[in-house]
């Protein structure tokens, strides 16, 4: 809210610091001052009043009271006098019907007659303009002025436009309509509270006045409303009709019910002075349950323990007194404190401690390391393995990206996701962020598209959460997904092998994946160049080339290999156990095998046989060449392996090695389609 520097000064009896200095003091003790702007001979201070202080500080009086405590200058509310007309009593002029005291805990009104409606004085117009309000006429301006001064919204009705001089506070009927002061038409329902007369609505309670009861140049008599409404009711009503006003904003924060009387008196005094009005005797006041000050016990030892530094009892008492708190009992270390009703935010000892802490100065609190038991931090294995994996991928030349957690309707179409399996945002900010991502792949593809303009080879990965809907439940889990450009299936496979190896997951294997025809039509994956990544019994991920249809959809020029691993599974399989295998001091012997097999034979089948027969003396098998070409029959390929034999405890003899080698060859040749060539 904006405040006028000159106006604030009126409540302070002493030398007020310069605007910049004042802004600094307020920032350190009360609220952040976001801007100080010189306008004419005044300054506007834009103060970010905190939501809990709305009740007392969305007003010049409230801010001035805080300044008084900070600077030690005396705070004083201006004195004013009302000369009442004796002939008629307001109570006889106006009748009230408040349907629910929970919606409207207090309704105060005064009547002013014989008014001369005109422009308000220049000084008042200037202040209203400085704070962003448009001057209208003396009555409306005075109502606004007093709101800015005290925080209490006021509303003036033209008394001649109120049927039967009766005001009813009630909920609107469904479909009931009203035209507001700014000529907007609203259709209301039970959520909205109304000010009405027996025939029609007069205004939307606490939000905006109605056109029908507006004060015009012809107005002679007004009913000036100063009411207290339930903050929740006003908030719901304001949300319902989507209308926020200076009044509704203040009511939403809650206002002291005892303020209505002060504000209405202040306003009618000004009307008497400025608009030549005559004030009718007394006031109409519905106030069935008077709000009384709360009492809070403050223990000074606790104060010291919470702040971490001692505040002298004299200073404590001084601060509380200046904030208009009363000390009812003082038996150190205990104080019984009465909280003024305008401080709706103070309910607990901690609230009082905050008041004392900020006014005494948070800067004065020293820095002291706590003395506590030594409790070693827990190790977080999720984070440990995530960091571990990220490091491996970085070493393998991958760059880590972070993408938003959302995907757009457009991407959903390209990828043909089933909406029923996705989690949709109820109130998305744009179509781009309408669904939670069910996979990391779509946005990684987007990254590739954007980066292909600048980089030829791209290797990126992300470790992040994906979201899916399973029946009525939400599933949220982390995936590790990487993309590399180029036809590099085996490079990607190598990267996965490296990850698994370093994670201590040894039993990883790759299973070719046969999609059902239905699946394959919409699949991400190239129908042939893809594989499921498995450990003993379960799938832990997928690896493959992205289908050309999807690439087209994402406007990507080059082939891509993607791996998509379930991080939650990886981390449970991972192990830090690692055992050193002694390096044999006996020589290794290498024998080669060359095998002619049909094109579609999987290397794993051959390797399994060699490994099985080779036993523990066959230390390693290395596929060093796959040949397809003219010198061998069509439809076949030639696989060449190095077989490395070594024993940990002796030098192997050629006879021993040859015996195993022959056995392997014999078994391999049992397959009629295979032919050992060496």
């Amino acid at each position, binding site marked *: 809210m904006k405040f006028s520097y000159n106006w604030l000064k009126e409540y302070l009896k002493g030398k007020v610091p310069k605007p910049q200095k004042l802004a600094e003091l307020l*920032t*350190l*003790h*009360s609220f952040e001052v976001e801007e100080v702007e010189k306008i004419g001979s005044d300054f506007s201070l834009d103060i970010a009043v*905190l939501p*809990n*202080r709305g009740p007392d500080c969305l007003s010049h009086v409230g801010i001035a009271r805080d300044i008084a405590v900070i600077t030690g200058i005396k705070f004083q509310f201006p004195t004013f006098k009302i000369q009442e007309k004796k002939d008629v009593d307001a109570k006889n002029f106006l009748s009230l019907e408040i349907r629910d005291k929970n919606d409207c805990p207090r309704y105060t009104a005064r009547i002013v007659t014989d008014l001369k409606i005109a422009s308000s004085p220049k000084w008042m117009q200037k202040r209203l303009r400085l704070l962003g309000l448009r001057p209208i006429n003396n009555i409306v301006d005075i109502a606004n002025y007093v709101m800015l001064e005290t925080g209490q919204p006021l509303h003036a009705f033209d008394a001649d436009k109120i049927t039967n001089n009766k005001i009813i506070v009630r909920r609107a009927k469904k479909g009931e309509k009203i035209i507001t002061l700014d000529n907007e038409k609203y259709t209301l329902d039970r959520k909205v509270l109304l000010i009405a007369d027996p025939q029609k609505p007069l205004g939307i309670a606490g939000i905006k006045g109605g056109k029908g009861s507006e004060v015009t140049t012809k107005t002679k008599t007004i009913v000036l409303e100063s009411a207290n409404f339930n*903050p929740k009711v006003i*908030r719901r009503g304001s949300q319902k009709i989507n209308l926020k006003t200076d009044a509704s904003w203040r009511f939403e924060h809650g206002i002291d019910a005892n303020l209505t009387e002060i504000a209405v008196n202040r306003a009618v005094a000004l009307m008497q002075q400025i608009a030549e009005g005559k004030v009718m005797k007394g006031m109409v006041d519905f106030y069935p349950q008077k709000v009384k000050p709360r009492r809070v016990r403050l223990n000074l*030892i*606790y104060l010291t*323990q*919470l702040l*971490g*530094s001692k505040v002298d009892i004299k200073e404590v008492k001084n601060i509380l007194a200046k904030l208009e708190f009363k000390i009812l009992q003082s038996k150190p270390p205990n104080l019984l404190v009465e909280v003024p009703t305008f401080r709706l935010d103070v309910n607990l000892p*901690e609230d009082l401690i*905050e008041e004392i*802490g*900020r006014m005494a100065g*948070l800067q004065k*609190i*020293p*820095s*002291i390391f*706590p003395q*506590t*038991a*030594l*409790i*070693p*931090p827990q190790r977080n294995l999720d*984070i440990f393995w995530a960091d571990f994996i990220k490091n491996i*991928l970085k070493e*393998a*030349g*991958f*760059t*880590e*990206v*972070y*993408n*938003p957690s*959302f995907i757009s309707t457009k991407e959903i179409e390209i990828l043909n996701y089933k909406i029923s399996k996705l*989690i*949709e*945002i*109820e*109130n998305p*900010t744009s179509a781009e*962020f309408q669904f939670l991502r069910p996979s990391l792949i779509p946005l*990684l593809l*987007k990254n590739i598209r*954007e980066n292909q303009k600048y*980089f030829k080879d*791209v*290797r990126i990965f992300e470790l992040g*959460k994906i*979201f899916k809907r399973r029946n009525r439940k*939400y599933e*949220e889990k982390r995936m590790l997904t990487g993309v590399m450009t180029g036809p590099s299936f085996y490079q990607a496979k190598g990267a996965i092998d490296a990850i698994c190896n370093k994670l201590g997951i040894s039993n990883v294997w790759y299973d070719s994946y046969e999609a059902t025809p239905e699946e394959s039509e919409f699949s991400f994956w190239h129908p042939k160049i893809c594989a499921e990544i498995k450990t003993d019994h379960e799938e832990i991920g997928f690896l493959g080339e992205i289908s050309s249809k999807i690439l087209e959809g994402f406007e990507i020029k080059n082939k891509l290999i993607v791996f998509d691993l379930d991080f939650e599974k990886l981390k449970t399989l991972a192990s830090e156990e690692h055992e050193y295998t002694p390096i044999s001091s006996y020589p290794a012997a290498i024998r080669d095998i060359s095998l002619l097999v049909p094109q579609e034979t999987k290397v794993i089948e051959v390797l399994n046989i060699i490994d099985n027969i080779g036993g523990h003396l066959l230390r390693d098998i290395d596929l060093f060449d796959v040949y397809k070409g003219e010198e061998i029959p069509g439809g076949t390929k030639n696989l060449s392996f190095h077989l490395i034999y070594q024993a940990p405890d002796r030098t192997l003899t050629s006879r021993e090695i040859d015996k195993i080698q022959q056995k392997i060859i014999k078994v391999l040749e049992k397959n009629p389609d295979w032919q050992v060539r060496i």
Partner: protein
Amino acid sequence: MARINLKRLKNKAKKEIVKTQNLKELDKLFKKYSGKRGELTSILRSLKEMPKTKRLKVGRQANELKEFLIAQFDKRAKFLKDKSEKESKKKEWIDVTLPGEKILLGHLHPLTQTRRKVEEIFQSLGFSVIEGPEIENEWYNFDTLNIPKDHPARDFWDTLYLKGGGLLRTHTSPVQVRFLEKNKPPLRIIVPGRVFRHEATDASHEINFYQVEGLMVDDKGKISIAHFKAIIEEFFRRFFGKRVKIRLRPSFFPFTEPSFEVDVSCPICGGKGCSACKNSSWIEIMGAGMVHPNVFKNSGLNPKDWQGFAFGMGMDRLAMVKYKINDIRLFYSGDLRFLKQF
């Protein structure tokens, strides 16, 4: 006669050795004197035909000459070797300003690096690192944190709601309660993680970003604002690697009382005023306070028994200040021109 011969031979050899220009010439010259048919060799061979007295004399002189010549040859050989090495090295000259061959390097995201640093510092101060779900409900995201329904305080957190119920957490604070429900204090945790806001994106706002939450709870009376100040000051000093100062300003959070904002003296200009701190010399970086009694209550703990502080800050903001990044959207752009700088 032999004497004169030897002397002349010595002078001649000396001159010729100095004249040689490379090892090959020197080798040829060596053969001319000391080879099988060399001049000196033939003199030595002719000794046995001489009378005994002469043979002794000439023999001694000839052997002296032989040693002398070997020394001369060695000296020259060393000289020529050095010379040729120098010459050949001259030919091996390279342009050291040519760019090196690029090796394939990967990069970790700046937020990963920031997060690791934050975790490392807090772990060394005895804090455990805890995580929590990103899909939350109103109870944990608001109610348990003392943020009442139908209160303007909720406007602080513009929330993305899910069709079918639930919401995306607007802060990491729900994890405070989730953790307190299952773990009895004393405890010290930090909670890094992704959070979401219903906000239009611009240079300083993102629909998702990272926060790190902190919580330290101990017996009543044991943990104060003074302790918070010491821990947080230590954190910022280690994080920015400079003697930064902190300043507390009063603030309001429903889940802490008292509450405050934490400003750090600008680590970029050191307080002189720059664009990063908008010439204020302070950077607003963290919200904090003493845990509100209602949060303990809502976590199933008796507020009479416990006391502690909580804080929260934007990881993106930390990284932006540290690396002088001016647009938060870069973090989520996947732009390799940006990411490869880290």
